[in-house]
């Protein structure tokens, strides 16, 4: 068995979907241990099952084989201790920015905090992602990047043991994406969260992660390679351009992805 200080342990995980054209084995024998405070990126070509892996960790889907253990307990379903930031923000359009975060706060802290404390906590989380000024706006009135900030605030407000990010910046333009990456790094430095992020952006993975988990192509995908990113924090994107560790990590991931190129897509 793996080391005991692992916060999250993915053990012999397998997932087979029953499709109309028969059984499809998406994941086979995925083995991964994540320490407390670690920032992990999962990268791979589209269709490699990385989103399936995240859904299994989140508990939104259940594995066919093996299991996910959080602090030694088997994950049986979704829960706020594994909060998810969804790719398309998933804010509820009938609630304000404040209301979306408050919804989560009210549910998770219904017994632990009184009304005033919940209000304060909600505003603190919005301030953390620099969205305090837009608390009373509706999701339809703010930009995509701002929506994603609110999505992050909502997830952080649950005080998750593991924060799961499902391609959180995929739908954003490059400039907004860079700003949000900096915000996430900043929050990670301040709060020390354990983060698992799905991405298909090599630079994003290298910039943010302590370890990059590279996945083989499906069917029956698994972990191909894990690269440790030995860059000191805080990391500044402008200074990393010539850093040899940065370049080494970058080329390792690119080499892996290139070797596992999907032939039919080329």
């Amino acid at each position, binding site marked *: 068995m793996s080391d005991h200080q692992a916060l999250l342990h993915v053990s012999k995980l397998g997932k087979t979907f029953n499709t109309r054209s028969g059984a499809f084995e998406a994941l086979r024998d995925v083995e991964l241990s994540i320490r407390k405070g670690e920032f992990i990126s999962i990268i791979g070509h589209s269709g490699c099952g990385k989103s399936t892996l995240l859904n299994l960790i989140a508990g*939104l889907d259940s594995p066919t084989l093996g299991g996910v253990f959080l602090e030694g307990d088997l994950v049986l379903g979704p829960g706020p201790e594994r909060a998810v930031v969804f790719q398309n923000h998933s804010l*509820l359009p009938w609630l304000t920015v404040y209301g979306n975060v408050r919804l989560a706060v009210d549910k998770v802290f219904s017994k632990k905090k009184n009304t005033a404390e919940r209000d304060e906590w909600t505003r603190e989380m919005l301030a953390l992602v620099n969205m305090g000024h837009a608390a009373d706006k509706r999701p*339809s009135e703010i930009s995509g990047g701002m929506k994603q900030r609110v999505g992050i605030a909502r997830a952080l407000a649950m005080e998750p043991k593991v924060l799961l990010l499902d391609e959180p910046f995929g739908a954003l333009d490059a400039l907004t994406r860079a700003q949000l990456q900096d915000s996430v790094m900043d929050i990670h430095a301040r709060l020390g969260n354990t983060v698992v992020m799905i991405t298909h952006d090599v630079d994003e993975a290298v910039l943010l992660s302590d370890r990059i988990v590279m996945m083989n192509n499906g069917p029956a995908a698994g972990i191909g390679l894990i690269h440790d990113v030995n860059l000191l924090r805080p990391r500044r994107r402008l200074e990393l351009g010539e850093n040899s560790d940065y370049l080494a990590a970058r080329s390792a991931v690119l080499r892996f992805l290139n070797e596992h190129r999907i032939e039919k897509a080329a």
Partner: protein
Amino acid sequence: MKSAALTLVDSVEDTSVKAEPVAVPSPSLKNDASTGVSPGMSEARQRVETLLRIVLLPAVTFGLVLLGWTIMQQTLVPSFPDVPAVWNKAVEVFSDPFYVYGPNDMGIAWQVMYSLGRVLAGFLLAMAVGIPAGFLIGANKTFERAWLPLISILRPVSPLAWLPIGLLIFRAVDPSAIFVIFITSIWPMILNTAAGVKAIPQDYLNVARVLNFNRYEMVTRIYVPSTLPYMLTGMQLSLSTAWMVIVAAEMLTGGIGIGFYIWDEWNNLSVPSIIVAIVIIGGVGIALEAVMNAVRRRYDYTLQEG
């Protein structure tokens, strides 16, 4: 060059206004060329144009209809009342809308209110049954399979076909009319609510699952608010159809109500009253539509965007 052109326009405008105030179009056309310079003026013009469009055009249409009516009345159907006769009837009807001379002889306001009361009663009953039913059908495949065929058969049936059944069950006209409105209103409510529940994005449900919402929280925090725009659409459809159906239903049931008022006046051969009633029914219909629009603007989050 530009200023020269402007002064030319100005001078033309000045002289034309002084010389022949009737020829307004010609200087105002020239004014268009200088809109960039005098936005205030063109804004005022635009406002006048909008006003003309929303007041003058319909007024012309109404005028043409009244004219056509008068010509028809004087040539083809002399038995039809002329415009002044209807006008006089309207003045008479509206001069004392709240009189009560007996259980079957009341002012026009009472007639309308009785009809509205039946519509409201049937509508609320349909909400109480149709919205929960729509939720069940939208959320549960088994319910949908079980109920949809029956609804498909019943929905195209004119609600008036249910009137005899209502009379048979309730043995009274008022509940029967309400029953007809209930039948009218319930189908759009069920079907729109069900469509709304089916349209709830998986993302919202995933958010709810991560938050470990229980069934009650799921319904109140996700299902109902997410479905509300669809429900309101169903309610608006129901209400406008119900207002149409009540007139026909009351013609058959009798008693007090705008529908029976028309039927009664037909038996009295008072066609001016019927025309007045038609206009009143139209006015009430517009008012109901406006109320529903206001409700939707207040509660439909899809209309609050931008």
